[in-house]
C-alpha cells in the first residue's frame, strides 16, 4: 500500500554537479588527512624507542588523541553526521559517550585494584 504521509527525506540530499565538486574536494582533503595521520602513527609506533626514548606516556596519549581526531573526521564527514540536524547528532553521540566514559573509568579503577592486590599476594 502506498502511503502519502511519509516524507522522502533522501531527495533533499540531492545536489548539483557544482556542489558535488565541492563535496568531492572535501572528501579528498579528509582522505589525505587520514592517510597522513595513519602514516605518522605507524612510523612513531615502529621507531618511537629511537626517536623519543623514555617518552612512552606522551607517545601513548598522542596515539589516543590522533585516534580521536581520525574517528571525528570519519563520523562527521564520511558518515555525514556533521551534516545532520543537531538533535540526531545528540541522540547518537551523547548516550554513547556517557556509557563509554563510565565504562572506561570503572575498568581502569578496577584493573588498578586487581593489579595491586595480585602484586601484594606474591
Amino acid at each position: 500500500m502506498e502511503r502519502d504521509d511519509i516524507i522522502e527525506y533522501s531527495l533533499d540530499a540531492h545536489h548539483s554537479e557544482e556542489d558535488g565538486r565541492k563535496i568531492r574536494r572535501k572528501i579528498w582533503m579528509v582522505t589525505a588527512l587520514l592517510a597522513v595521520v595513519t602514516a605518522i602513527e605507524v612510523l612513531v609506533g615502529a621507531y618511537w624507542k629511537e626517536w623519543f626514548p623514555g617518552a612512552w606516556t606522551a607517545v601513548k596519549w598522542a596515539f589516543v588523541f590522533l585516534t580521536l581526531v581520525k574517528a571525528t573526521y570519519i563520523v562527521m564527514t564520511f558518515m555525514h553526521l556533521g551534516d545532520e540536524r543537531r538533535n540526531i547528532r545528540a541522540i547518537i553521540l551523547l548516550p554513547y559517550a556517557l556509557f563509554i566514559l563510565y565504562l572506561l573509568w570503572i575498568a581502569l579503577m578496577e584493573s588498578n585494584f586487581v593489579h595491586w592486590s595480585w602484586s601484594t599476594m606474591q
Partner: protein
Amino acid sequence: MAGDATKTLSNDVLWGGGRSPFSISYGKMMMWFFLVSDALTFSGLLVAYGFVRHSTLEAWPIGEEVFRALPGLSGSYPLIYVALMTAILIFSSVTMVLAVEAGHRMDKKGVIKWMFLTVLGGAFFVGSQAWEWSHFIHGGGGYITTADGSKYWVHNDTHDTHDPANAPGFHLVAAQPGHYLIPAEGTHHLDHDASLKLWNERVNYVDGANMTRNEYGPPQYANFFFFITGFHGFHVFSGVVINIIVLIMAIQGVFHRRGHYEMIEKAGLYWHFVDLVWVFVFTFFYLL
C-alpha cells in the same frame, strides 16, 4: 546531506509537537541506532582487553615486536603489514563516500564504479586478515622454557616445528627476560651441542598460537587477538556481502527507478563504521 533543515514542511506530516526533529528517514535512523549498539559491543571488547592488560602481572607482548612480517619476505618490518591493511580499509571507505556522493547526483555509472572499488577493497582486507591470522597461528619457530624458567627461541633452516632438533641448522637463542620476542643483550646463537642439551632438558615447547597458549605472551593475548580481530573481520565480511548486494541492485537500476540512492547511504554507514572500529583496534591492539 543537509537534510531539510531549512525547508518548511506541511503541518500534516509533522510530529505531534508540530516539528520534525530529526529530518532523517526511518531506515537511516535505525541504521544509526544499530551502529551505536554495535559500537558499545566493540568498546566492551576493547575495554575488556585494556582491563586484562592493565591488571596482569606478566609481561605483555608489544605490537611492533609481534607484527613485523610481510608475505614472501624475511626480515623485520614492524607494523608495515597492519598499516597496509589500514590503508586499504580507509581507501575503500573513501570510494564508498564517493559512491554516496555520486548517488546524490543520480549518477548511476559513478555509483557502480565506486561501489565496485569498495567491494574490491573490502575483499583485499579480508584476504590480508586471513594471511595475518595464518602467520600469527604458525608463529616464528616457538621457544622452550628450561627448569630455571629462562626461555630460548628455537631456530632451524627449514622452519620445522614438529621435530626442530633434528632439522638442519638447529640452534637456540636466549630470549630477554620479560620480552620473549627479543634476543637477550650480549647473547649469541648457541652452538648445536649446547642447544641440543638445553632442548633435551626443556620443561615445555610452545610454538605458534592457539586458544590455550601462544609464543607471544599470556594466553589472553592470543584470545583477544582472535576474538577482536575475528569479530571485526566478520563485520568486514558481512559488509562486503551487503555491498555486493547493493552493487547488483544498482546495476539492475533498482535505485534509479526509485528516484534516490539512499540504500547506498545506509550500506555506506555500516561500511564506514567498520572502518571506524578498525581505527580503534589499530590503536589499542597494535600500537599501545
